């Protein structure tokens, strides 16, 4: 069963144009594969909202709360000791660790979040079946219109893509 129709382009500009054309053609379920990020491409694909910043923010807040809470609990509640006559809740001394922990959790949350949202790690993906897809990490720019798209039809879509002057169009097995 076919996963979708993959077209390879020489330049980001051609790819971008192709994506726009595909949208006007009415295609929705498609994805582009490029060796490096290309500005505007995600918008052209109308990718959904990006939740990574929110995750990072929440991670940071959680870290800060845990950080201060841990110190307050240990120093003031669980085992209060007179240390050099300092107050049990020596908040200025607790700031550095609070900060470090919030940065730590924010970073970890961000990375984990990014990978999760991207569905990575994922060793196998149908896109890899496309001929010379390994150039997707070098200097080839791919557009894949997926079979699940209602507007998808093997012949029509192939004809449409070939009209966009790609180096190659191939049917990707899923």
């Amino acid at each position, binding site marked *: 069963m076919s996963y979708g129709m993959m077209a390879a382009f020489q330049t980001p500009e051609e790819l971008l144009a192709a994506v726009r054309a595909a949208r006007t053609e009415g295609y929705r379920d498609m994805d582009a594969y490029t060796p490096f990020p290309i500005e505007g491409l995600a918008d052209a694909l109308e990718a959904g909202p990006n939740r990574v910043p929110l995750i990072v923010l929440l991670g940071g807040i959680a870290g800060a709360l845990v950080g201060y809470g841990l110190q307050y609990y240990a120093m003031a509640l669980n085992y209060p*000791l*007179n*240390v*050099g*006559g*300092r*107050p049990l809740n020596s908040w200025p001394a607790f700031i550095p660790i609070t900060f470090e922990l919030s940065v730590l959790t924010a970073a970890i949350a961000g990375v984990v979040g990014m990978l999760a949202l991207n569905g990575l790690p994922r060793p196998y993906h149908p896109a890899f079946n496309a001929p010379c897809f390994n150039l997707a990490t070098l200097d080839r720019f791919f557009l894949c219109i997926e079979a699940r798209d209602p507007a998808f039809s093997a012949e029509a879509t192939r004809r449409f893509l070939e009209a966009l002057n790609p180096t190659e169009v191939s049917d990707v097995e899923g």
Partner: protein
Amino acid sequence: MTMSWDAIRNRLSDVQGARYWQSLEELCDEPGFQELVAREFPAHAAFWESPLTRRRFLQLMGASLALAGLTACSLRTAEKLVPYVRDPEGVTPGKPQFFASAMVRDGHATGLLFESHLGRPTKIEGNPDHPMSLGATDAFMQAAVLDLWDPDRSQTVVTRGRVSTWEAFESELLRQRQQWQAAQGSGLRLLTEETTSPTLVRQVEALLRQYPRARWYRHDPVDRSALLAGAEEAFGQALVPHYRFDRADVVLTLDSDVLADEPASLRYAREFAARRRPEGPMNRLYAVEAAATLTGAMADHRRPMRSLDVGVWAGKLLARLQDGLPAADPWLEAVARDLLAHPGRSLVVVGYSQPALVHAIGHALNARLGNLGQTVTFTAPAPPPATAPFADLVAEMHRGEVQSLFILGANPVWTAAPELAFDAALRRVPFSAHLGLYQDETSALCTWHLPEAHFLEAWSDARAYDGTASILQPGIAPLYEGRSTHEVLAMALGSPTRSGLELVRETWRGAHPGTDFEAFWTGALEKGLVPGTSLPPVVPTPRGTPVAPPQAPAGLELVLRPDPTIWDGRFANNAWLQELPKPLSKLTWDNAALMSPVAAERLGLSNGDVVELRVGERSITAPVWIAPGQADDSVVLTLGYGRKVGRVAHGQGSNAYVLRSAGAPWIQPGLVLRKTDRTYPLATTQRHHRMAGEPLVQVSTLQAIAATGSMPTEAPPSLYPEVAYPGHKWAMAIDLNACTGCSACVVACQAENNIPVVGKEQVMREREMHWLRIDRYYEGPLDAPRTYFQPVPCMHCENAPCEVVCPTAATVHDDEGLNAMVYNRCVGTRYCSNNCPYKVRRFNFFQFSDWTTESLKGMRNPEVTVRSRGVMEKCTYCVQRIQAAKGDEAATGRPIRDGEVRTACQAACPTRAIVFGDLNDPASEVAALKAGPRHYALLGDLDTRPRTTYLSRVRNPNPALEEA
């Protein structure tokens, strides 16, 4: 030394702020300084961390398999011992017990109490009832327990290098006795140290009755015979002086360290310090001396002078006092006027190292000032009377007249003046038996060596300097095969009684016939002394004016002195005393040729240069140490070093006995110094450098206080909340006006708290472990500086900087304000030490504590953790003693009385300079002191809120001598 001394003097003359300095190098930032600093490196740097360090260190740990299975925890003797009843801390079962006994040095007893844990003597305290202790101890008494448990002690009978038995020795004695019978003991000689033991005297008398032609000689390296001769000269009878510092307003010491090295020094120091309080009528002390001494350090006015010239100066003073013509020397004039202004309340003290004639002058001075019977009283010396001079014995031995020689305790081969050639003489004696704690230089040349029982292992008796008799009771059965002098003498006599206990009891039954003997005996043991045995005072009549001694030839003199930490060498194998910094030089592990800056400059010498000291045809080499305040033409060397035996003593320092002369034991003219090209690393615990900014030792004068008064320093405002200490609030106050720097407290702390020794190399690397150190500061002119001592234990700051930086909460505050150190939580970041402005924390850089040597396990205080490698440690205010007292409090419900908890340092202090107590008890002494005008906190402006604080030093200078 390449630096210019004028530069130093000028610098000192015009420094305003930082007037204090500690040693010379810091005084000039000139090439000389740099060079000296460079010199400091070899002592300090071991690029390859030297293997010697480790080996030496292992030696000190004294781990010897020979000792495995030793009876380290042998039980108390079967004989009945009587515990000290009025015990300082109250005896309850399961608690350590205290027994009264006494320690004998130079023949004189000082009363003590030893603490016994399950029959193991672990700690020594003073006996408050004893006139020569008054509850205090000196460093030697504190270190005695280490001697007891010393793994190097002689353990078996040895004859001609082979291990033997007491039985073999007895059978040898049988043969000997037949010879003695035949010859009425004509070839029999007995040599002991100075002694006052009634039992010994009784035994010797018995021996002499049995063998009329036998003779008894005494030999002691610390020779005080000049005192008696001086009294002969002055009064026509052999008397010893007793000084009454409590009555003296003005004191003049002539070449005497009366506060430190007299048999009665503990008492003297106590009474002297009691009169130093600016609150009461404060005394004034003038010191004229060659060596810088502790007494000189306490003096209001000190005059460095060659020992040889002291007599002449004293003669001038006497003349001044008698004919009343003003003297040319303003200093002498001022002293004379001051003395004359206090008839009957002044005191002149002459040191035992001065010849008889000078003592006679001293007596004449006191007589002129009407002090006889007032500030100085006299008694006959404690019996027995002096014997024929030791030299006669050696002569007899050389002539081959001695067939049998008993050497009981002494070590004459090492301590006798070389010109006597005692070793050669000893080789001519067919039968010689040496009884000693160690297999030493003498035992090596004797046909028999007999292991001696330590005084904590044996029964004996002795008299104090004032004649008061004490009975010495043992705290433990002999660890090895040791026997006491009495027991050996009994063997020699072939007497039926052999047990030390019985021998001593016989003596005292003789003195106390009648039925109440048991009561008397028990009482004597309890109190640690026999009441009413002090000698009656004698009121002597002076015989005319002594002639002033002739002016001595100019040039360098050699002054020998007993060492402040190992005395005459008998404590040379005691690692505590070896590592105890000498009070003034702060040297450890070595003696050195002490000389004044001027002398050093003249000879181009600096610290550590090795010089050859030559007197007549005898010479030794020794490293130089520059001692500010010493007389310019006087070189001081202390006895006791250069031992060839003992793992600890071996190879440390130079043997001053080589330079000793039988005629003049202490002072010799005509010293020749020659600089060698060698240098020798000396380990000092206090390196150079001037006081940074504020006066750490606050000093004022009596006049200044009277004029302006002084207010206690207020604690600065703090950002931190006041912590409430509802229960106890422990604190310490140290009176810098009372501290003489004697260092007994340092050893007391070491004994109480299981503090390890680290060895010379580690000391050179600034890793000594003493929890309590005594800082020594100099002030004023280089050639006659004023000297101040400052004991520095942990300050137990309420806002402790050390605690805040500890990552594991291994040092925290307890609810009584103690800065607690939790050894087993410490990971050893050493951050606390960095952040301690007082640098009182000590770190176990290696495994310093000896965990293997059996006997040392027996010595340890079971109440105190033995620390491991890698942890920090420091003064705990003797928390174990606090806990013990609180235990009693909980058990009896009786609140802790002030003075009930006494820290080890406090208990040892002869002058009561250290006071510990509860600040929440308004009636406590410490609370009162801290409210007083002299109270101040060290580095108080750091807002560390130390619980250990100080009372400022107050001097009482003679206005005529001190330009204000």
